[in-house]
């Protein structure tokens, strides 16, 4: 069937549905995370005394042109392994957006 998508200012035609996915990257346990420690301190200073350990990380939201969620997930893992995360210091998990048709 196909569909028109916007890519920036351009319109692009694709036969595939888009699958949206997320890659969550954070430091492995045991790897120094001074940002997390600083955020923890700030939260405690704000009076959130229930706050324990804080680990910081980042999330990448990606759109993939594919009709196959399983393939999309595999691709996301591959991208995370090769670029988005550094396996020496970071771990990741991937997630596909709920409600993906196909």
């Amino acid at each position: 069937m196909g569909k028109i998508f916007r890519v920036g200012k351009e319109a692009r035609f694709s036969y595939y549905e888009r699958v949206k996915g997320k890659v969550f990257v954070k430091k492995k346990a045991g790897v120094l995370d001074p940002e997390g420690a600083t955020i923890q301190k700030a939260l405690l200073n704000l009076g959130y005394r229930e706050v324990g350990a804080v680990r910081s990380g980042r999330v990448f939201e990606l759109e993939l042109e594919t009709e196959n969620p399983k393939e999309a997930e595999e691709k996301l893992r591959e991208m995370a392994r090769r670029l988005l995360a550094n396996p020496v210091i970071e771990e990741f998990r991937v997630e596909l957006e709920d409600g993906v048709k196909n």
Partner: protein
Amino acid sequence: MVTFPGSNCDYDCYHVVQDVVRQPAVYLWHKEHHFDNCDVIILPGGFAHGDYLRTGAIARFSPIMREVVDFAMRGGLVIGICNGFQILCEAGLLPGALLRNRSLRFLHRPVYLRVEKNDTPFTNAYRKDQVLKMLAAHGDGCYYNTPEEIKKLEAGGQVLFRYCDREGNVTEAANPNGSLNNIAGIVNSSGNVMGLMPHPDRAAEAILGSADGAGIFFSMVARFAGLVVA
């Protein structure tokens, strides 16, 4: 000298090689696919590709890096300074990773380094345990690796430089960024790829406050001149 978009010490390195140790130097743009007749490849300091994602993470996929990896595999001498060290780690040419400084602050001041090993192509101009003064200028300089890998590095004599105090004592207080075992510079297991966080290129002439860094460049010259076996 490889220039990535965002490199800012390529000219410093060029100047040291050309004017201090008086060897011919050339710039290599990161998009180039070939280089000939180079004895040493230097990945200079800076902020290649804006340090986006992680320091060195994008630069390692620059076209020239494929050549640099080949060159290193053939035994060519490669040295990465500061951002160059980060790129070599991301490229897998050196083990480990460089994390955000423990203080979360950009560190820009002279530091002292102790020479741990002088039988290498990069350090033969120094004495073992010699204390060097060089300039540190980095935000992500905290050397990290897994405990097993650190053990391997230490056992294999791959740690070339450690942060120390003026007298050469390796102490926690002399560790400016939280690096494990005060590691400032390492070499790969085959001994031809070195990474160093502080800048020898910014400490290679007395007018800059220290000429200690020039020894690294002179060491490589001595090695090619056949003056040393290492």
